[in-house]
């Protein structure tokens, strides 16, 4: 770590939405007044106890929080090193961490008097969570989803429709998360007056990376309290998978000033870092896309290149700007695991703990598998189990050569 280290890591972004050189508000002028409105409204909501009370109440009684912090005995024994604990956000209503953020954003949308909700989705988890809160609050909802993802996440497409959402398949580009986000932005520019865009990860123009992080930080706040209560101390290492980085920043942020706690973000190395992958920190460089400056997979002309991951939720050529910042200042370490390693991690958790994880946290499990054996038995790892695997059984069966 170098000497430009700030006193606290928890006071970012600055008032212009910058995390060091990253973040910002790189949007079309049409959206600027709305982005500034949202920033004002979010500031007011943050200072309003009634907003927090409603958020907390919904998280407790609708989402099912706090989620358990679970010690994984057989996995720990099999890996033969650090004690492995999981933050069980896969037990949330709708099966992933995405709902935490959606509850916060729908409350903001209602505060702002917006009448219509749009969202992008990759794996479909954010789409399902958005459709869910829209049904709960009676707002119409349109979900943009890449056509490739529509095909590989069919159960989630059906869930969204059951919940009353309109699902728009996006055929541009590779038909994945990036293309869905482009299309959501196009819809938003054309419907600024009445539409609220619920972004699904800690990325996009300021204030989204901040507010998504704040809503997801419930993960880390609970985990911090739970592990201290159970073990009397802080963990040595936090591990989380990274698509845009919302579950990871949600777990990490409340611990950022605990200097003894190391953190590891896990990107998707797809077929391998020398082939097609979705690891923007490992294989990208800073650039501007989707409203923020961050690490992006791109060619020498700044054209965005298509990522690949077995996990639709990680298949994105960028990363939230706060991660770009935390990596550059050295506070958080980042690594990547391949599709194959994630498949191993997936099966490992099924076999040892009786938990079927989503393919996204399977990446975190694969990283835990590598790092736990290198740590002492008295050390503690907390990994974010940010989603359950029901949505992925077809993809996994296909990989394993099983016909369903």
């Amino acid at each position, binding site marked *: 770590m170098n000497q430009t280290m700030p006193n606290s890591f928890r006071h970012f972004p600055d008032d*212009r939405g910058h995390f060091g050189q990253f973040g*910002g*508000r*790189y*949007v*079309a*002028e*049409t*959206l*600027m*007044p*709305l982005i500034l409105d949202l920033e004002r409204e979010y500031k007011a909501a943050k200072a309003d106890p009634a907003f927090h009370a409603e958020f907390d109440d919904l998280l407790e009684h609708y989402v099912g929080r706090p989620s358990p912090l679970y010690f994984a005995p057989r996995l720990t024994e099999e890996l033969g090193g650090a004690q492995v604990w999981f933050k069980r956000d896969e037990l949330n209503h709708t099966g992933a961490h995405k709902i935490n953020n959606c509850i916060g954003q729908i409350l903001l949308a209602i505060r702002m008097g917006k009448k219509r909700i749009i969202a992008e989705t990759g794996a479909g988890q954010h789409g399902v969570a958005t459709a869910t809160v829209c049904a709960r609050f009676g707002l119409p909802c349109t979900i943009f989803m890449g056509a490739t993802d529509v095909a590989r996440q069919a159960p989630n497409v059906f869930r969204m429709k059951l919940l009353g959402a309109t699902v728009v398949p996006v055929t*541009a*580009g590779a038909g994945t998360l*990036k293309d869905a986000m*482009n299309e959501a*932005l*196009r819809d938003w*520019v*054309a*419907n*600024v*007056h009445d539409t609220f865009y619920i972004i699904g990860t800690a990325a996009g123009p300021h204030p989204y990376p901040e507010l998504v992080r704040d809503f997801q930080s419930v993960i880390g706040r609970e985990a911090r309290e739970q592990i201290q209560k159970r073990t009397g101390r802080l963990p040595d290492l936090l591990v989380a998978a990274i698509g845009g980085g919302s579950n990871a920043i949600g777990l990490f942020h409340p611990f950022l000033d605990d200097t003894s706690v190391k953190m590891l973000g896990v990107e998707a190395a797809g077929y391998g870092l020398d082939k097609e992958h979705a690891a923007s920190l490992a294989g990208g460089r800073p*650039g*501007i*896309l*989707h*409203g923020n*400056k961050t690490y*992006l997979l*791109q060619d*020498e*002309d*700044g*054209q*965005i*290149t298509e990522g690949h991951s077995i996990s639709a939720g990680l298949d994105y050529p960028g990363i939230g700007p706060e991660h770009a910042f935390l990596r550059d200042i050295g506070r958080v370490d980042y690594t990547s695991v391949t599709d194959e390693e994630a498949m191993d991690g997936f099966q490992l958790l099924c076999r040892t703990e009786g938990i079927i994880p989503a393919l996204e946290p399977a990446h975190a499990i694969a990283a835990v598998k590598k790092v736990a054996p290198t740590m002492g038995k008295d050390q503690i790892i907390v990994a974010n189990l940010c989603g359950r695997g029901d949505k992925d059984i077809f993809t996994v069966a296909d990989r394993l050569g099983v016909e369903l």
Partner: protein
Amino acid sequence: MTRLASAFSKGRPALVTFITGGDPTPDATPAILDALVAGGADVIELGLPFTDPMADGPAIQAANIRALEAGTKTADIFRIAAEFRARHPETPLVLMGYANPMITRGAEWFAGECVKAGVDGIICVDIPNEEDAEIGPALREAGIAFIRLATPTTDKARLPAVLENSSGFLYYVSVAGITGKQQAAVDTIAQAVAHLKAGTDLPIAVGFGVRTPEQAAAFAAHADGVVVGSALVDLVAQHGANAAEPVRALTQALAEAVHKAREPA
């Protein structure tokens, strides 16, 4: 007087035309640019292709993809621009596109290439004034105009931020939306232009959704210029490498309509 200032000082509304560079191929672009000049365009916007044109509708999205699939590089766009400047010393040329290809080798590099190629200004969709530091200082240092966009959401409170650091002309995006879709009502144009004129002496060009000479004339009656993009890009989509002649014909019809849309001020 700069080339851009001259283009808006002819005592009549100006026709501003847009095509995507490298569409359908880098080799086809010069003839299409020449056709725009021959047809009577006063200002030319050359699109710098990008993989993720978030503010564009289907027509210009497809043009970006055609250009990139034909292998168009940033270097091709600057070569096309430099050759254009050699053939057409008078016609202002503006590069229009998205931030990432413009800043990827550094804003100074980009501004320097603009100078070398004889580019007069740039329009960048996703750098609002709040992020001016990303490219604005480099452009001003190099003497390249930074043309900003005003929109129907630019209210009185917002206008000063849009005008700060803007130069060349002001591009009024007449509908809140993406390119090539709906068209604004003419009376909203007159109002919007009056609102903008109260804040700036820059010429105001109005665009988005203008397709026909009649529509262009109606807008031109209230503005210093009219921008036509998707309708020309559609001709390129339809005629490919043979698009120059149809592009010239439409440009001429548009130019005639725009140029006589109102009495000299």
